[in-house]
Every structure is written in structure tokens, then in C-alpha cells.
């Protein structure tokens, strides 16, 4: 099968407008004849559901949380990029496009990324019109900051709660459509299967998380906006409920999964404090603007940081990268922290942390200045660790933060299943092998507000209005499959809890498919995951029944899918014999220890096709063509 | 007027009524305490008795007094309505609850404090207001002014009883705490919260809640002490 990205031909800057014009339209009066299912109500899902309902489609929106307002987009802190060039500092759509392609280490599709940069302008307008209280200058105009080492100030923000404010904006638009009767909202409802009729996505099977009722929902198109799969690592900065189940079960029906091994590790997280750790907390990257990263020079130096003299400290980022110092990109900073900890020079009780020291900054600028810049972050750190970062250095360690991989989609955001779309972090499309800071929010809203409303019409215009009744055999079969899996999970009654197994899976993934990977390690991991899978299906202990609120049962289904996805990530990481962005294979590095891409052989998207439980997945390649940017090597020396 | 009744039936409408009647009663208290200070004038009660007649016979004051009665009644009835609705909003309470960590004692006990004040009011009105209006009071003749009902002597007599004085003291405690929350609360309900003025309102409210009940309480106490002499 040849993967057709359906990217329009012609000059880059005309592709999207040409595509909009070429797309077939659904007559306004006919839109109400189409039903659309939206799974997930984060930035992508809520904005898509609201926008499609505004156009006149009948939308059914689903989320597993108790309210659409709680989706994990809410936790994004930093900001949202847009090429507004309000600061007169040389930003442009092309520059944002270029930065995103380069930041993604040349593993994303030019046409999609350019469109993302284009519609970034509209996003900010839309959000302001909804009442999103972005930060402003004294003159009343919008403020911007530079983020993640970008050369221009293009990041819009609402204190450290940008994701929250954007999500609440999308949620308000969604709420308005609920009132208008155009969106039917299903909170505390989880999608457990996709329903296919004649090769098209025509509905989903859900479980009501309170009553356990298995229900069928029929529609003319299905949108998966279910976020990333970082929780495959057990510990991540994702919310506890984030999962891959909807995407994975769609994958099993034929939606290809692209670049699953591309995961982003964020360098400044609060380290694990013990086995009880349930999740990790990110602290804004901006801390590295003033903090200095160091570890003791000697292995196993257990002295308190106060007692380690300057001469016995190793400011390893400053040493290795004299020009960028502590501000090297996320992946570089993360990897170097791992190396020093692997050498046995990590600090704290677990030895898995490095110091982020503000002593010099406080001496230089005064405590008040540092407090005004980072006060809330310092408070948060103190709240979690019980240590005062004004007096003793912070301890930080990298943590899984975002997954660039996801369901393969074409230019219309359609997966390889006709009628099944994937938006936001759930798809693979725009970030290549590494995502830039403040671009996740941008992509979620771009897909939901400004891409899908056009893209879906092009598909629906070719479809009949006929609705498939939910007693159709395809629905019945899917329901049966879901019920069977639930009964199986409940009947095993072994001795391992779901969390225990999830934790084991996470450890394997982190150790072998985390910040750096080797063929040997990945092969070992392959075997370990197979064992974990076998153990899960023979020894997991899930109590209770289906017909009640049963959080262990919910988790069990999700972990079952994470195990299978984990196995695919290992295969993908093995297949990609190069280092790029978040994927670092130790065998492929420059003499200086930096990521070494293999553009000749690996300038492609790896899209995996499911072949049944017992067989290996089939790899399909979408070759990436770069007509507008020149591939270069990143260097931060 | 359905829009108006509709508005007044809403939760905010009910609060508005509580605030407006409450503020009116605060104004009343101010007038009442100032007038009653005449009890301290060492003229054997003449000024006080003249004031008492003025208050019961001047038409404008009479209209105001009816508004006051109405305010008391509405304030009390609405407090019952609101309390009932609030109880309904939490049918099952907490096994452990530490309200003291997040709010003042008076703000949480406005119902009890108000009830104390109300019980006091009934006794107080029966003793003086009812007697003045409908009772048979001894009269006193002030040369050159005329004959007056001698309310002063009734008051003085009442304040010779220690338990009556005690009742006043308890009630004024209740009133003080009721005002400590009620004063600023009324402004908040009316939407009058501004960082420039609210601190001042709070200060005035605090002062009012101390000074007014203290003045009221001083009357029976002083007169009781005088009666001992």
C-alpha cells in the first residue's frame, strides 16, 4: 500500500487556500443530516466539536473525565506560538514553519507544518474573541515571550496557565453548542472500540464508566482527539487517565500508527522520590534561563550540596556546550543529565537527579528578582519536595512529556481508515521527531478550529445521509468483542495488580526505549514486554464487576493496550537506525556525542499496520519531500 | 411585575432583601442609640420623656417606624427562608468540619445571633414600646412644657432588676457579633466591594459593631449601678 499524503501540489504558501477551494462542500441545509462523533474533549476535541456543531453537523462528544473541562490540555503551562510578528522582530509564517520543521529534525511533512504556521494567526484571534485573558502590555496589546530558545518572541501566554485558559475557551464554545442542542455531551464515557461498516468508520462502542453499560453510537465520521500515549512509561507528566485505548483500538481496525518511538523527554521535572511515585510534575523550562545545572565531580559524593566546593562541581552543560550552556534544547539537556547519573554522579536519595542551582542568580539579581520571575515554580517545588530552592539547589530529572508519534493522517487529518480522523497529539503529523515548546497547544487548536471543518466536508460530501442503525451486525460484533474483553479481565483474578504490571512496563520502556536506545537493549525489551503481556493476561487481578464504577477495570483495559503499543514502539525504535530529535540511538551519534541523522535512508514516516495479535506489524513508509528547506545538522556547541 | 418578583425570588434577590433591610436596621440602630443617650441627661428623665413623645407622635417618624417594623419582620422571615434553603442544599453534613479554619465565628452563626436579638426585641418591645403605646403609664408634669407619659420611670424601674440587665448584656453581645458580620456583608451583597473603599467599610463596620452595642449596654448597667446607690 502506498501512503498518499494528499498534500496539494503547487507553491507551499498556496497549498492550503487552494485545497480549501478544491474541497467539496456540504450544503448548509444538508449538514444537519450528518452525525459526527468526537472522542476526547481537550483542545483538539473541544474545538472540533464546537466548530463542527456551529457549522450545523450533529455532534456527539465523549470524554472519560467527569467534565470536558478537565482534559489534560489544561495542564500546559508555557504558552502558544503564533506567527503574528506583533513584536516586529522578524517573525513570519515561513519562519515558524521553518523552525518547526528544523526543530522536528526534518521528520515532518512540509505541507502540514506550513498550514499549521498559517492558521496559528487565526487561533490567537479566535481565542481573544472567546475571552481568553492573555497577558498584555501596559498599552493594552498582547504580550509575547520567547520560548524554548526561539530567536523571536512569538509565544502568547496567560500566566503559567495557558493551556487551562485555551481549554476553557474551547470548553465554553463547546458548552454553547450543548445549549444549542448541536452537541450531545457524554462525560465519564470511554470509547472501547471502533465500528467499521463497508470499510468506513461508522461508529464507536463506549462504556458508561458509572453504570458499566456498553453502548453503540453510530455516525458518518469519527474524530479521535484522545491525546498522547506518554503513560506507556507509567511515570510521565501526563494526567493519570491519559491513555491510548481509543487510538490503539482504531489501529487494530486498520489505522496505521506512525513514528511511535518519537517521544519527548522534558529535562526539568521534579525527580522521582520513591517507588510510590504515581506521576511526575513538570517545571517550566524557563528555569534554565537562570539556574545552573551541575553534579559533583566525584562518583557517589553524598555530601550536602552546600558542602561541595565550587572546584568539585561539574557544570556539565556549560562545560560541554560553551555557547548554549544551560539553554541547550530539551533532548540534549535530558540526555546529558542521564549520562551523568549513569556515571553514578546523580544526586538525591535515588541518585537519579541533577542540581539546578539558583545561588549565583540570587547573588547577581537578588532574591526578589528571582522570586518575581519564578516564585510560583519555587513554591510548587517546595510543596512537592519539602525543600526550599532559595536555599538549597533544586533537584531535577527528565521525564516523558509528549509523544510526537500517533495515528498516521493525511493532509485532511484522515487516518488510513476512511471517515476516521485524528487530531491533536493523537496524530503524528506536525512535530516530526521533536516538538518545539508552545507548539502543542497551537497544533491542537489548529486541527480543531481551522482544519477539520474544511477537511470533513470534503469527505462527507461524497457520502450518503443514511444512518446505520446500532443493531447492525457490525455494531453487535464490536459490542460482543468489548464485552468479551471485559469479562476476560474480570475473570483472571490473578495476583498482580494493574498498577504493578503497568509500573513494570513503564520501567522497561524507560530503561530501553527512553532517552537513549540501543539495538541490544531494544531487543531485550522486546522479550521483556512479551513476558509482561503474558503475565498480564494470566495474572492480573481486577476486582468487582462491569456494572459499576470500577476504576481498576478501566485501568486494566488501558494498560492492556499500552503493553501492545509498547511492543510496537520497540519495533519502531529498532527499525529507525539513526538518531533524530527525541529518538537517540547510541550507535548513531557524531564524534561529539550528538544525534546523527541518516537522511539518505530514513527521511520517511514509519507507519505501522496491524496484522493480528500473533503477527508482527507491517511497516509502510511515507517518504518525506523537502522542497522548501535544506536539511542541516543541529549544533549547540 | 413578574420580572421583579422573579428577581426577588432568586437567590441573589433574597440576599438583596436581607442586605437592604439589614442596612435600614443599622440606620435605625444609629438613631435609636443617639436618642436613648438622653437617658444619661441628669434631668430626672425630662429630655428622655420629651424625646419619647416626639418619637411616637411625629408623622414622619411614625412612617419610619412602620418601615422599621416591616424591616425586622422581613429580615427575620427571609433569614428563615434562606436558612431552610441552605439546609436543603446539604442534606448530609460532614462528620468532621473545621469551619473555624476558613471563616469567622460570627459569619457562621448569624442565625443564632439573629435569634438572640429577635428574642430580646420581643421582650424589649413588650417592656417599653408596648407600654408607651398601649399601656397605662404614670404621667409627669414638667412646668412650662406640659404633661408627659413617664417612660423614664418605667425604664429606670426595669433596670433595677439584675436579670433584666443581664438579658440586655447578652443581647448586646449577640447584636455586636451580628453586626460584626452583617455590616460589611450587606455592602458585599450589594456589590459594593472595591479595594479602595472596602477596607474603610470593614473598619467602620467593626467600630459600629463595638460602639453601638456598648452604648446600648451601658444604659442598663449605669442605671443599675445608680439604682444601687
Amino acid at each position: 500500500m502506498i501512503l498518499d499524503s494528499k498534500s496539494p501540489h503547487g507553491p507551499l504558501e498556496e497549498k492550503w487556500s487552494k485545497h480549501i477551494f478544491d474541497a467539496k462542500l456540504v450544503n448548509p441545509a444538508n449538514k444537519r443530516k450528518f452525525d459526527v462523533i468526537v472522542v476526547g474533549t481537550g483542545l483538539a476535541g473541544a474545538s472540533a466539536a464546537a466548530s463542527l456543531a456551529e457549522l450545523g453537523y450533529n455532534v456527539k462528544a465523549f470524554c472519560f473525565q467527569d467534565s470536558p473541562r478537565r482534559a489534560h490540555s489544561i495542564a500546559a503551562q508555557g504558552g502558544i506560538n503564533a506567527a503574528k510578528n506583533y513584536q516586529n522582530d522578524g517573525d513570519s509564517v515561513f519562519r515558524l514553519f521553518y523552525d518547526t520543521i528544523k526543530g522536528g529534525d526534518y521528520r515532518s511533512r512540509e505541507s502540514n507544518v506550513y498550514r499549521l504556521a498559517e492558521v496559528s494567526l487565526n487561533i490567537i484571534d479566535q481565542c481573544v474573541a472567546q475571552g481568553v485573558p492573555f497577558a498584555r502590555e501596559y498599552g493594552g496589546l498582547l504580550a509575547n515571550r520567547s520560548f524554548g530558545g526561539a530567536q523571536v518572541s512569538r509565544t502568547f501566554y496567560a500566566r503559567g496557565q495557558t493551556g487551562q485558559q485555551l481549554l476553557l475557551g474551547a470548553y465554553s464554545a463547546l458548552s454553547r453548542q450543548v445549549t444549542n442542542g448541536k452537541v450531545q455531551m457524554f462525560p465519564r464515557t470511554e470509547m472501547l472500540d471502533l465500528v467499521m461498516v463497508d470499510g468506513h468508520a461508522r461508529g464507536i462502542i463506549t462504556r458508561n464508566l458509572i453504570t458499566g453499560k456498553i453502548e453503540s453510537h453510530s455516525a458518518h465520521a469519527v474524530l479521535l482527539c484522545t491525546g498522547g500515549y506518554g503513560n506507556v512509561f507509567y511515570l510521565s507528566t501526563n494526567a493519570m487517565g491519559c491513555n491510548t485505548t481509543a487510538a490503539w483500538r482504531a489501529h487494530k481496525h486498520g489505522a496505521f500508527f506512525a513514528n511511535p518511538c518519537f517521544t519527548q523527554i522534558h529535562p526539568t521535572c521534579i525527580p522521582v522520590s520513591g517507588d510510590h511515585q504515581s506521576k511526575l510534575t513538570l517545571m517550566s523550562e524557563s528555569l534554565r534561563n537562570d539556574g545552573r545545572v551541575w553534579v559533583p565531580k566525584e562518583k557517589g559524593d553524598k555530601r550536602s550540596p552546600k558542602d561541595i566546593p565550587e572546584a568539585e562541581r561539574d557544570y556539565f552543560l556549560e562545560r560541554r556546550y560553551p555557547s548554549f550552556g544551560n539553554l541547550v534544547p530539551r533532548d540534549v539537556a535530558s540526555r546529558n543529565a542521564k549520562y551523568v547519573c549513569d556515571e553514578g554522579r546523580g544526586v538525591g536519595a535515588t541518585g537519579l537527579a541533577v542540581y539546578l542551582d539558583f545561588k549565583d542568580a540570587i547573588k547577581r539579581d537578588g532574591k526578589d528578582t528571582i522570586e518575581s520571575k519564578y516564585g510560583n515554580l519555587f513554591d510548587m517545588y517546595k510543596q512537592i519536595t519539602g525543600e526550599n530552592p532559595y536555599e538549597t539547589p533544586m533537584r531535577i530529572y527528565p521525564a516523558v512529556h509528549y509523544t510526537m508519534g500517533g495515528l498516521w493522517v493525511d493532509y485532511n487529518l484522515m487516518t488510513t481508515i476512511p471517515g476516521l480522523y485524528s487530531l491533536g497529539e493523537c496524530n503524528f503529523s506536525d512535530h516530526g521527531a521533536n516538538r518545539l515548546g508552545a507548539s502543542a497547544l497551537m497544533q491542537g487548536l489548529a486541527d480543531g478550529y481551522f482544519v477539520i471543518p474544511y477537511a470533513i466536508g470534503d469527505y462527507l460530501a461524497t457520502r450518503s445521509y443514511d444512518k446505520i442503525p446500532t443493531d447492525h451486525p457490525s455494531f453487535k460484533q464490536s459490542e460482543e468483542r468489548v464485552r468479551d474483553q471485559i469479562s476476560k479481565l474480570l475473570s483472571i483474578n490473578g495476583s498482580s495488580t494493574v498498577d504493578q504490571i503497568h509500573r513494570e512496563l513503564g520501567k522497561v520502556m524507560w530503561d530501553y526505549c527512553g532517552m537513549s536506545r540501543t539495538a541490544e537493549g531494544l531487543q531485550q525489551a522486546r522479550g521483556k514486554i512479551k513476558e509482561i503481556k503474558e503475565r498480564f493476561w494470566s495474572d492480573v487481578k481486577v476486582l468487582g464487576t462491569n456494572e459499576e464504577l470500577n476504576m481498576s477495570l478501566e485501568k486494566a483495559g488501558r494498560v492492556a493496550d499500552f503493553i501492545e503499543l509498547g511492543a510496537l514502539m520497540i519495533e519502531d525504535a529498532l527499525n529507525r537506525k539513526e538518531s533524530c530529535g527525541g529518538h537517540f540511538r547510541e550507535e548513531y551519534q557524531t564524534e561529539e556525542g550528538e544525534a546523527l541523522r541518516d537522511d539518505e535512508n530514513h527521511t520517511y514516516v514509519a507507519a505501522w499496520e496491524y496484522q493480528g495479535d500473533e503477527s508482527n506489524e507491517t511497516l509502510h513508509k511515507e517518504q518525506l519531500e523537502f522542497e522548501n528547506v535544506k536539511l542541516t545538522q543541529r549544533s549547540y556547541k | 411585575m413578574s420580572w421583579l418578583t422573579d428577581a426577588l425570588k432568586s437567590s441573589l434577590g433574597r440576599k438583596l432583601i436581607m442586605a437592604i433591610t439589614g442596612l435600614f436596621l443599622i440606620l435605625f440602630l444609629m438613631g435609636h442609640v443617639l436618642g436613648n443617650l438622653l437617658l444619661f441627661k441628669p434631668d430626672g428623665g425630662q429630655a428622655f420623656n420629651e424625646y419619647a413623645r416626639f418619637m411616637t407622635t411625629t408623622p414622619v417618624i411614625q412612617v419610619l417606624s412602620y418601615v422599621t417594623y416591616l424591616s425586622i419582620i422581613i429580615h427575620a422571615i427571609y433569614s428563615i427562608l434562606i436558612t431552610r434553603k441552605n439546609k436543603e442544599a446539604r442534606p448530609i453534613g460532614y462528620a468532621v468540619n473545621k469551619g473555624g479554619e476558613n471563616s469567622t465565628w460570627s459569619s457562621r452563626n448569624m442565625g443564632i445571633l439573629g435569634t438572640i436579638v429577635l428574642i430580646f426585641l420581643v421582650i424589649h418591645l413588650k417592656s417599653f414600646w408596648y407600654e408607651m403605646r398601649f399601656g397605662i403609664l404614670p404621667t409627669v408634669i414638667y412646668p412650662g412644657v406640659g404633661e408627659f407619659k413617664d417612660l423614664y420611670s418605667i425604664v429606670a424601674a426595669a433596670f433595677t432588676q439584675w436579670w433584666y440587665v443581664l438579658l440586655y448584656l447578652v443581647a448586646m453581645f449577640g447584636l455586636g457579633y451580628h453586626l460584626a458580620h452583617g455590616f460589611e456583608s450587606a455592602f458585599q451583597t450589594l456589590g459594593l466591594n472595591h479595594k479602595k473603599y472596602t477596607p474603610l467599610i470593614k473598619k467602620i463596620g467593626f467600630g459600629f459593631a463595638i460602639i453601638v452595642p456598648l452604648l446600648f449596654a451601658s444604659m442598663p448597667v449605669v442605671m443599675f449601678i445608680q439604682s444601687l446607690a
Partner: protein
Amino acid sequence: MDFTLKIWRQKDAGSKGSFNTYSVKDISSDMSFLEMLDELNEDLIKDGESPVHFDHDCREGICGTCSMYINGRAHGPQKAITTCQLHMRSFKDGDTITIEPWRAKPFPVIRDLVVDRSAFDRIIQAGGYVSVSTGGVPDANEIPIPTSIANEAMDAASCIGCGACVAACKNASAMLFVSAKVSHLALLPQGKVEATSRAENMIAQMDKEGFGLCTNTGACSAECPKEISLTHIARMNREYFNAKQTSNNIPDKEEVHEG
């Protein structure tokens, strides 16, 4: 550290609940409160007992999902944080900790410590939005907004909808939640267009849900993880009274308010 936990257990909305006592041992002071409960649940599951159900998701204090009344306080003994940000070092070794669900008629218990807060969604649906559709909006910098206004709006908008205000209020009143949204949008020029109908509709819905009336105790604001100020309630009151006097909305005669 060892603790005795008294936890409200209730099988489902229809069942009668009661307190169960559990003891947990060897708890690290670095654990978060929810991790301590995770630990308890792991032990319960291994013993074949049903784990304690509680709502939680982001575990970093922003999603507003976690919701527990701990030792008589919404979100526990610390100010300005959610339950998920509470750590065991805030307790003393050997403490007895009582854990209850939010208590309010509009927040019925679903199971154990999980309550149904969909009333909040319905209040937002009644008017907590600006009626703009996607596309066709003016440039973001078209209308300047003074920083003080933008900041004040942001203060209000930082509400996470957790319901601690209702839980802590002795009247189970939702005024702080409602006012946060009314105030956020009333402050901004984009929200002013619909300010009157928004205030009227959201408060009508709030009353319909059966929340109690505000008596200005201030407990809501004191327990709010985002420290939302009572000034927003005052602003909502102004908006509402103003709307009632000046708007053209006259309710139908048949319409019965539960008010």
C-alpha cells in the same frame, strides 16, 4: 509514618454509605496524599477488597478533578492547593485522618469519594461563554485591554471548577464558582456584549441546581485552591442587579423558578 484513615465508603448513588477505618503503615513523608491512597488501594486489592474510589487526574493541581474533604477541610489542611498537591509531611505520624466526599445536594455521591459535579457544566452551558463562532473574528490586537483588567479577568478565569467552594461553604453555595465566570467575562470587552443575559441565566441555573445562598462567610475563597477573591461575587451581584433592572428579558408567566 503510620496513619489511621476513616474513609467514607458508599457503593453507589442509591446505597447508604458509612465510614470504614483502615490503617496504613510505612508511609513516606514525600508521598502525596493521593499516592498514600494508591498504596492503600494496592493493599486492598491484594486482599480482595474493593479499592477506595476517588476522582483524580492531572495530579498537578490544575484539572480540578480531585475533591476530598480531609479532616474537616476542603482539599485538606493546607491553603491554596488541591488534594493532589497535599503531601503526607503535612500530617503527624499516628494521625487519624477523616476523608469525606464533597457534601452538597447538587453534588450527589456516585461512589465512595466520587461525586457528580455536572451541575457546574450546566451552569456554564447556561451562559458561561462568548457567543462567537469559529472564524470571522477581528484581529487579536484590535481591542486594547488595560493590563489591570486583563489581570483581574485572569484572576477570575483561573478557577479550576473543583467545587471546593461549594464543599467548604456552610450553605453549599456555588456563588464563588459562578461569579468567577461571570466576572471573568464581564470584565473583558468581548464578554460585555452578553453580560446581562449571562448573569441572569447562569444564576437562574445555579438556583435550579439547588445550591445554597451565599451568606458572605468567605469560606469559599479561603479554601479555594486558586484563591479566587470575594470581589468577584460582589461584581456578579452588581451585574445581576443591573441586569434585572435594565435588561429586556421578561420571564414567561408560566415559568416556575425553584429559587
